[in-house]
C-alpha cells in the first residue's frame, strides 16, 4: 500500500506535467477545428512556441527581468504563435488551400525557419540554456493534505494549473458564450452561419490564431519547464500527440483534457516502470509502446466513433453548394 502510494506520488505529478503542453496545444487545436479548419500544423506551432519562449526568456533575462522572464517568454510565444499561424490561416481560409497540406507545410516551415534563425542569431544549432526557469512548487496548505496533497499539489508547475484552468475557460467560452456558439456554427455549417450574418472567414481566422496562441504556449511551456533550451529536436511529436488527444477527446475540452492526462499517465508509467517493483523486469519495449497501444485500444474499445465538426476541412466559398 505504502509502496503504491509512493509510486503514485511520483507518477501522478509526472503525468500532469507531461499532460500540460499536450492539453494547452489540444485546446488550440480545438479552437481551430471547431471553426472548421483542420490543424495538423499544431506540431509546427509548438515548435514556434518553444523557439519564441526560449528566445524570449533569454532576451528578457539579458534585460534583467529575472524570474519574470520565462513568463514573458511565454507571452512572446503566445503572440508569435498566433502570428505564425496566420500562414495556415491565410492559406487555408483565404486562399482555400487544402488544410491538411497547409498544416503539413506549416510543420516543415516551423522547423526550417526556427533552426535557420537560431543559426543566424546564436551561430549554432541550438540556443543557450535559460537560467531563469519556472520551477516546481508545493502549493501551500493543499500539499499537506494526506494522499491528495503529494499527488496533486506537491512539486508541480504553476503552468500545469494554468493549463487546466484554461481548459475550463475554453469550455466556458466555446459552449456558453455567443462567440463559442458562432465559432461552432462556422465549423458545422458555415453557409448557415453566413446567412445569420456571421463573418465565417473572420471566425475561422480567430479560431486558427487562437490555435497558434495556445500551440505556441504549449510549446513554450514545454521548452521552458522541461527542455531549458531550443533546438530542432526540442519538439518531437508532441504536436501530433496533442492532435490525437483532441480527436480522442472528441473535440471537447474535457475530453481532450482526459486524453492528455491519459497520455501523460501512460508516458509517466512507461518511464517510471523500470523503477517500480514488479514492473522492473518487464522488457522496456512494452513500456515504451504502452501509451500508443493503450490509445489505440481505448479508441477501438470504449471511446468509439468521434464525430468531427461537419465542415471540417472544407474551405468556405460564399454561395457554393
Amino acid at each position: 500500500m505504502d509502496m503504491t502510494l509512493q509510486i503514485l506520488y511520483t507518477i501522478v505529478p509526472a503525468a500532469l506535467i507531461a499532460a500540460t503542453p499536450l492539453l494547452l496545444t489540444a485546446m488550440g487545436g480545438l479552437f481551430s477545428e471547431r471553426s472548421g479548419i483542420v490543424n495538423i500544423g499544431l506540431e509546427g506551432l509548438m515548435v514556434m512556441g518553444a523557439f519564441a519562449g526560449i528566445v524570449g526568456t533569454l532576451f528578457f533575462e539579458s534585460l534583467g527581468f529575472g524570474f519574470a522572464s520565462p513568463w514573458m517568454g511565454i507571452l512572446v510565444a503566445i503572440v508569435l504563435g498566433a502570428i505564425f499561424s496566420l500562414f495556415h490561416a491565410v492559406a487555408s481560409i483565404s486562399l482555400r488551400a487544402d488544410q491538411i497540406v497547409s498544416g503539413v507545410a506549416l510543420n516543415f516551415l516551423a522547423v526550417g525557419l526556427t533552426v535557420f534563425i537560431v543559426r543566424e542569431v546564436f551561430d549554432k544549432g541550438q540556443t543557450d540554456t535559460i537560467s531563469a526557469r519556472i520551477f516546481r512548487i508545493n502549493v501551500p496548505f493543499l500539499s499537506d493534505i494526506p494522499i491528495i496533497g503529494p499527488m496533486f499539489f506537491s512539486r508541480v508547475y504553476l503552468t500545469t494549473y494554468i493549463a487546466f484552468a484554461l481548459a475550463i475557460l475554453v469550455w466556458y467560452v466555446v459552449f456558453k458564450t455567443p462567440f463559442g456558439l458562432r465559432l461552432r456554427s462556422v465549423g458545422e455549417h458555415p453557409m448557415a452561419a453566413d446567412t445569420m450574418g456571421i463573418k465565417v472567414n473572420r471566425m475561422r481566422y480567430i479560431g486558427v490564431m487562437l490555435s497558434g496562441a495556445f500551440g505556441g504556449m504549449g510549446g513554450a511551456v514545454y521548452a521552458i519547464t522541461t527542455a531549458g533550451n531550443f533546438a530542432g529536436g526540442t519538439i518531437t511529436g508532441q504536436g501530433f500527440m496533442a492532435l490525437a488527444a483532441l480527436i480522442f477527446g472528441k473535440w471537447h475540452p474535457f475530453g481532450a483534457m482526459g486524453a492528455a492526462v491519459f497520455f501523460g499517465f501512460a508516458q509517466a508509467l512507461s518511464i517510471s516502470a523500470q523503477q517500480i517493483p514488479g514492473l522492473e523486469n518487464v522488457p522496456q519495449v512494452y513500456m515504451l509502446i504502452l501509451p500508443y497501444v493503450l490509445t489505440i485500444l481505448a479508441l477501438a474499445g470504449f471511446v468509439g466513433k468521434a464525430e468531427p465538426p461537419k465542415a471540417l476541412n472544407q474551405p468556405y466559398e460564399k454561395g457554393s453548394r
Partner: protein
Amino acid sequence: MTNMFKGKLFGIMIPLIAIGFGFLAGGIIMLISGNNPITGYVALIQGIFGDIYYFGETLQRMTPLIFSGLAVAFAFRTGLLNIGVEGQLIVGWFVSVLVGIVIEAPMIIHLPLAILGGALAGALWGFVPGVLKARFQVHEVIVTIMMNYIAMHVVNHFIRNYMLESGQRTAFINDSASLSSDYLSAITDFSRLHWGFLIAIAACFLMWFILWKTKKGFELRSVGYNKHASSYAGMNVNLNIILSMSVSGAFAGVGGAMVGLGTYNYANILPGFTNLGFDGIAVALLGSSTSIGIFLSAFLFGGLKEGANNMQGQAGVAPELVEIIIALIIFFVASSYLIRWIYSRVQSKKEGK
C-alpha cells in the same frame, strides 16, 4: 474541349509556378540573412547536377521518397490520410533486412522474397489502422500516428536485443538480397544508386495502373469520393478501406526495403524517425497524388536535400534553408487559388490590350 486542355496545362503550371515562388522566397531569405542568393543557388544546383556522383545520390535519395509518396497518395485517393507511412516504412526496412540476413537463397528467389517481406510488414502496419477504421470507425490519423511510434520502438527492440552487430546496426544482408549495383554505382562514380530506383519507377506505373485501369482501383476511388454511393452500388466499403490502407502500407514497406536492401544493406537502431515517411506526405501533395507528379516531386525533394549539403559547404548557407523552401513550395501549391487569381489577372490584362 479547350477548357479541359487549359485545366490540364494548369495542373502542370501550378507546381512550376509554386516552385518558382518557393525559390524566390528562399532567395529573399538568403539576402536578408546576408548570403548571396546566386552563389547559394549555384552551389545548390551544382550539388545536384555538378557531379555525376551527386546526381546518382539524388536518384538514390528519391527512391524511398517515391515509395512514401505513392503510399500517401494511394490512401489519399481512397479518402484516407495515412500519416503512418513513416512507421510502415520502418517495419518494411527491418523485415526486408531480416529476410536478407536470415535466409540463404539464390538471388532470384532471395531478393524478391526480401522485398516481399518488407511489403508484407508495411501492409500489416497499414492493415491495423485500416481494420480499426472499417470496423470501429476509429480515426486513421490517430492510429497511424500511434503506429509510427510503435514501429520505431518495436524495431529498435528487436535490433537491440537480437540482431545487434556493431555499433547500432544489424549485420549486413547477404549479397543475394542486395539491391546494390556495382554497375549503377560505377556509372555514377561510386554513388549508392541501386536497382531500387528502377523498381520505384515500376511502382509509379503500378499505382497508376491499379488506380485508373483496374476494377479494384475504380472501387477504391469510388469509396474515396463517396462511401454511401459506393455501398449503394454494391461495393464493400469496409473491405476497400482495409485494402487501401494495406496497399498503401505495402508501398511504404517496399520503400523501407529500398533503404534496407539498397542504400544501407542493413537496419539500424533509429534514434528518431527517418522522416522519409513524413516527407512522403509533401511529395504526394506536390505531385497532386499522381504517379508522374510523385516521381517529379520526389526528384525535386531528393535533389534539394542532396544539394543542400553543397550549399552549406560551398556557399555557407544553412541547410535549413532548403526545408524552408520546401515548406513554401507546398504552401504555394496548396494555395493554387492565389496563382489562379494572379494568372487570371494577367490574362485579362492581356486581353484588355
